[in-house]
């Protein structure tokens, strides 16, 4: 991506973006850039401020403070020239219940001077068999495909996808990933939000993790949270009549009393040695003992957990 970014201005530039809803600050000083042709994934728990950020970039909401450039436009004042070049999948989009899939896509195609073929788009999102179905009869996943079709039909240079695959079955999700990858090949820039780490890992060139209105981490999916350096996770079921405090080489984390204990360590051999010696000394078997490298999911949970715990913010 770095190579592509040279000579082309970034598709999206966000600097010190803030958004208040009344006294509540939903987005607090977020800055990032998305290069032209890049796929950027925004991750974060519910209420982190992803939709708010994306909708500001789409021109749907007016920011409180900060600098925003999208395709060289201020989305607030971009007007038609701006909207002709972006495609938007809202987190929850509205449809005219009594129109058919084909009628909806034709309608949206008619807003652009140079749209894709209606039939092609419908086929591309896998709704060819539902062309004549009224949108009120579509399933949740089919509606999401329609959302995608309506965003694609104008041949946008930049697409916003706010949780594009929520409600998809695993198969449909693979299809959507395939489609998004094809879009990337055609040079389309994509900003997507997701709760699914595997999705971001599959698709995104770079990931930003949001929590409580802050961008708390930004990297490639592979390096998220310094995963390569993040050591090893040791987990086992705490034997009855012991507490986490009795264990050697602590502190050990315990999510529920009497449940699993785990530790994140850079010195697994030493910890394991102490642990197994302790177990042997008590003539114990350690049920469910596993030693693994953390998954992206665990790294992510640690990142947002850290933010929640230490997240006392100055308003």
């Amino acid at each position, binding site marked *: 991506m770095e190579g592509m970014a040279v000579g082309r201005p970034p598709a999206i530039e966000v600097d010190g973006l803030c958004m208040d809803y009344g006294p509540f600050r939903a987005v607090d000083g977020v800055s990032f850039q998305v290069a032209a042709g890049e796929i950027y994934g925004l991750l974060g728990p519910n209420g982190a401020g992803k939709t708010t950020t994306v909708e500001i970039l789409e021109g*749907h909401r007016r920011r409180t403070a900060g600098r925003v450039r999208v395709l060289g436009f201020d989305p607030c004042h971009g007007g*038609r020239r701006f*909207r002709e*070049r972006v495609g938007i999948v809202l987190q929850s989009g509205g449809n005219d219940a*009594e129109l058919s899939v084909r009628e909806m896509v034709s309608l949206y195609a008619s807003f652009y001077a140079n749209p894709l073929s209606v039939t092609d788009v419908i086929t591309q999102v896998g709704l060819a068999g539902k062309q004549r179905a009224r949108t009120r009869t579509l399933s949740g996943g089919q509606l999401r495909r329609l959302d995608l079709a309506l965003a694609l039909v104008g041949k946008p240079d930049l697409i916003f996808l706010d949780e594009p695959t929520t409600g998809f079955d695993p198969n449909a999700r693979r299809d959507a990933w395939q489609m998004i990858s094809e879009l990337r090949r055609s040079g389309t820039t994509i900003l997507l939000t997701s709760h699914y780490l595997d999705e971001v890992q599959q698709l995104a060139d770079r990931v930003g993790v949001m929590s409580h209105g802050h961008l708390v981490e930004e990297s490639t999916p592979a390096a998220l949270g310094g995963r390569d350096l993040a050591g090893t996770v040791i987990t086992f079921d705490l034997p009855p009549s012991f507490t986490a405090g009795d264990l050697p080489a602590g502190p050990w984390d315990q999510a529920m009393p009497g449940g699993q204990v785990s530790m994140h360590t850079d010195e697994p051999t030493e910890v394991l040695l102490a642990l197994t010696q302790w177990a042997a000394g008590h003539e114990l078997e350690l049920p469910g003992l596993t030693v693994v490298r953390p998954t992206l999911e665990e790294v992510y949970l640690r990142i947002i957990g850290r933010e929640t715990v230490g997240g006392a913010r100055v308003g």
Partner: protein
Amino acid sequence: MVPVSAELAHRSRPVPRLVLGQARYQLLLLTRSPLGFLLTLVLPLLLLVSLNVITPGGASTAPAGLPYAQFLTPAVSAFCLLNAAYVTTITSVVHAREEGVLKRLRGTPLPAWTYLAGRFTAALVTSAISIAIIVGVAVVFFKVHLVWHAFGYFVLAGLLGIVSFFLVAAAVSVLVSKTETALPVAFGTMLPLAFISDVFFSSRKGPHWLHDLASVFPVAPVARAMEAAFNPATTAWPMPVTGLISVLCWTAAGAAVIVLAFRWDPGPFRFRPRHHPH
């Protein structure tokens, strides 16, 4: 994929085509909505027939010795305009906004006003068709005759009415927060006005103050002018200047509210939130 070629590829669509497309879209929606059809055609027609049948001695309520049907036909036509331009606009705009349809449209290059222009054109077409049917039925079955020398006044007053009712309705839709309240609000404001504005009965025999009160709102001047245009005695533009001013004021007020506050996002009406960066 160089930005320059991208610029060239994205040439805008001509605006007249967009407006026509919107009108077609709105008409398509209307043909699929039984409520719209019921309000603009069936209800006025039912009213025309039933009032004519129930009130055979209705001549007494019609002005200046006209046959009742001669009064009722343009009156019901005004009612049809109210339904097509006012009630339908409020219900469908609120519905589209709360469903998120408007928000999605707002994210496309469709200019905002073309949406309203499309809706207006659809209201115009449906009311023209409905009124043609109503007048046709009246002529054939109730011996109503068209007053050709005043027919232009009928059309002109009707056009004035539809513009005014439409803009006021679009403004009212801004204030309505929920889909469920749209129809009660629309009927709750329209029906009482219709009753005092000579849309069902002539109010000549009612109290003066009621007659004058009605003239403050846009319905009465429009309805009375349309009715006068079916009276053979009418030879000049039948809307008093005060009535015209009232209609124009309401129209301007509606337009102002739309420009300042028309909403595309779902949710309750708020005064524009003002954000002060800390």
